[in-house]
């Protein structure tokens, strides 16, 4: 579809009354503080592009990319404008006109070919473990990435040796009586960087009567592509995943990664595939998708076994943008934490403010990302928590780096990992 004809571009730009409400909530604007980085500035510039008053150049792209795609502006816009979608659509349009080699390589080739991504991560792991970090950096994959990568490479730490997919089977039978067949959308980052989260997810789900299917050929959810203007690639990836999961006839399709679950949410699938030939299949898929935390509370209503002897732990929770803003899921992860014996949940100030990670933003805009991160860490550390929980691998990576950078020894965990620990010594439910 032509840029001008895309629904948000066609219908929403004129709805902006320039009230500036979005200025007051945007984390990047709070750092840059000039109108070129204000969400309403982005809306304005997308309008200029649409009307042909500016050309789709890299200069425009650069300004639009001062954005974390955190969606905070969109959820706060009183006129109901999906500001981040407008931005993504515009970046995609500019991208089509100015293919840039470095980014092509990363986003088209690497993310769409899990093998390549895996090998790159593996290379980094090897470089770290063998003390050849310097060499790793010299030949490192990060050089393929654009922008601030040489500086940002240190964020990508501690790559585990075995990916989750190598440790988990395709079909994981329910323990006890089977209640549901659940497709597990195991995202790239959880698979490669946080296999312990994937194992915990499977553990918790099977323990609660779910048969868990992990299709072998899951491809990237497409969110990094949307954020970087590669809409067509995002569409192809989504279509592939739709067909793949539909072939398994699951009752639900869940993801423990906030970015993936928002990418496969109905809203986003409609944004990508609505109006195309595949629409019916796409909606059949999207109707079943749900974030893990919501599934655990709303559908399974999990009750971990009471344990009066459970060790007291102070936990604070960071809202991933892709969960709180994109899907409005704020209460479920908190409720999940509260249900875990021993957990005391302490709210931090501005828990729903972006951590500055936002997928690849920390890699492409390193300095600004660090400013945003340090504010987040100040608020987190003030709680006196010993664990910092969140539901997104990109946030986890960023927050771990933030903890490290601030000499804070709190552990960054996914709530499902804490939950899985309570089941370890308990037999499965017999229903």
């Amino acid at each position, binding site marked *: 579809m032509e840029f001008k004809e895309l629904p948000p571009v066609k219908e929403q730009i004129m709805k902006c009354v*320039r009230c500036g409400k979005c200025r*007051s909530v945007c984390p990047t604007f709070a750092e840059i503080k000039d109108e070129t980085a204000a969400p309403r*500035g982005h809306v304005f510039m997308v309008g200029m592009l649409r009307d042909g008053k500016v050309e789709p150049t890299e200069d425009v792209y650069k300004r639009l990319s001062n954005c974390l795609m955190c969606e905070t502006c969109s959820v706060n816009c009183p006129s109901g404008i999906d500001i981040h979608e407008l931005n993504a659509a515009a970046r995609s349009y500019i991208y089509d006109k100015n293919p840039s080699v470095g980014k092509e390589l990363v986003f088209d080739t690497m993310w769409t070919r899990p093998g390549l991504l895996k090998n790159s991560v593996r290379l980094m792991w090897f470089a770290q473990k063998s003390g050849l970090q310097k060499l790793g950096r010299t030949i490192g994959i990060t050089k393929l990435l654009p922008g601030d990568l040489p500086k940002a490479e240190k964020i990508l730490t501690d790559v585990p040796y075995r990916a989750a997919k190598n440790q988990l089977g395709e079909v994981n039978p329910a323990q006890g009586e089977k209640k549901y067949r659940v497709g597990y959308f195991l995202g790239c980052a959880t698979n490669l960087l946080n296999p312990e989260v994937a194992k915990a997810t499977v553990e918790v789900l099977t323990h609660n009567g779910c048969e868990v299917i992990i299709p072998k050929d899951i491809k990237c959810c497409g969110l990094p592509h949307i954020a970087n203007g590669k809409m067509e690639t995002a569409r192809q990836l989504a279509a592939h995943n739709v067909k793949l999961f539909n072939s398994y006839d699951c009752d639900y399709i869940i993801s423990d990664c906030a970015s993936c679950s928002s990418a496969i949410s109905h809203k986003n699938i409609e944004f990508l595939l609505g109006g195309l030939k595949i629409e019916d299949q796409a909606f059949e898929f999207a109707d079943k998708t749900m974030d893990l935390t919501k599934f655990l509370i709303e559908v399974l209503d999990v009750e971990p076994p009471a344990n009066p002897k459970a060790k007291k732990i102070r936990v604070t929770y960071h809202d991933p943008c892709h969960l709180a803003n994109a899907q409005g899921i704020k209460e479920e992860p908190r409720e999940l934490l509260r249900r875990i014996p021993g957990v005391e949940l302490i709210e931090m100030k501005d828990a729903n403010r972006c951590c500055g990670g936002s997928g690849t933003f920390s890699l492409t805009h390193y300095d600004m990302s660090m400013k945003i991160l340090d504010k987040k860490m100040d608020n987190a550390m003030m709680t006196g928590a010993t664990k910092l929980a969140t539901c997104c691998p990109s946030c986890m990576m960023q927050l771990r780096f933030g903890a490290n950078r601030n000499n804070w020894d709190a552990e960054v965990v996914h709530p499902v990992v804490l939950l899985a620990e309570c089941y370890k010594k308990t037999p499965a439910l017999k229903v």
Partner: protein
Amino acid sequence: MDFAAIKDELAKILSKDKLLTEELDLMYYSYDSSFFTQMEPSVPQAVVFPTSTEEVQKVVRFAYENNINIIPRGAGTGETGGCIAVNGGIVLDLSKWDEIVEIDARNMQVIVRPGVIHARLNEELSPFNLFFPPDPGSSQMCTIGGMVANNASGLRAVKYGTTEQYVLGLEVVTPTGDIIYTGGMQARCIKNVSGLNLTKLMIGSEGVLGIITQIRLRCWPKPKARGIAMAVFDQLDDAPATVLDVYKAGILPSGIEILDSSAIKAVNEFKPEINLPNCEAILLFEVDGNPPSVDYEGRQIKEIADRRARSVEWATDPQRMAQLWEGRSVTASAASRVRADGTRVFAGEDVSVPLSKVADTLRAIRALGEKYGIQVVNYGHIGDGNVHTAPVINPEIPAEVERVMKLVDEIHHLAIAMQGSTTGEHGVGVVRRPYAKQEHGQAVEYMQKTKAAFDPKGIMNPGKLF
């Protein structure tokens, strides 16, 4: 002076990060919140971000020597094109200069730089049990500098008045590049009648007399308790009548707001959880003070409103109060929700009429909307007769734009005919300039003479006010 030369000279005065000169960047400074700039954007020649009085002075002196226009800007939430370079020039964006210089709690004062955001100031004052009472709907966005320059006020003006009541003194860089201190800027007293009142002259001057670089504000003790009464009416006229009844009973609420049926619809569309009842009009009364007096006044208001209202809810639960108040404060932009393919525009949005004529005005505005076939959402600070009108149109359809401009013109004339004013708080800027003569007569000449005394070359924010 040509553009390249301006750019070079500014680069000598300010560091790179305080200067925008690329065409693409400058475009972002072609608008504020007004419909006018949406239709007629004007791009400046440069944008600067000074963060010291000396930097402001250097820029102003340079501009003065070279006859270049200067346009002060805060957050650009003004509704009148006030901060736009309609005749070209250098925009001074003061929003990055957001330092709270001193909180003098013992003397109940605070000194701020112009870019401090209103909501943040009150957050910082809160631990001292103090607050700066004027509270515009744009509290989270607008700057204190912009508030002073526009003499902004807000939902609680009924009891607390406008910004001017709280400004003790100012530091101003004049259009010729002098730095002056007005009123009690350099004193710490609260009462001060010494000298011609230049502070009051600067307040509401919309950037045409100088650049406000520092502000000494008086703060008030924060009230301990608060309550909100929501009265639901089936007849529009009953709402303004109830307001008068409440005043007659000797009660001064901190705020009285009205939402008409279309405003109610807009709020419910935006935030369904607020769940306002469908009716012709809703009044929100806010009372604040000590707990027993809040309770007493709340009950009194309920009793009075019950005479005409379908129902009255008295809320003291913080969550419900926040919800109701939020419902009102988002109406300004949520108004767009009443039409799927339309948006509210900020034009003719701020007339002010005598309390006795509010009902007539609301009815007349509705009739005008019908005459031009344009949906209007009415809401506003009914407690002081300040009616906000939001025409909802599709700005991409020229015929609708043409009709809305006629509607707005009639609304402005209506206000004057009602013995009111074209603007109760948002100011004149570019958009209400055509009515200056009608509103002020020969006084306009004296305004112009005053400006000329400050600004002999006419470089400070030209094209505004008169």
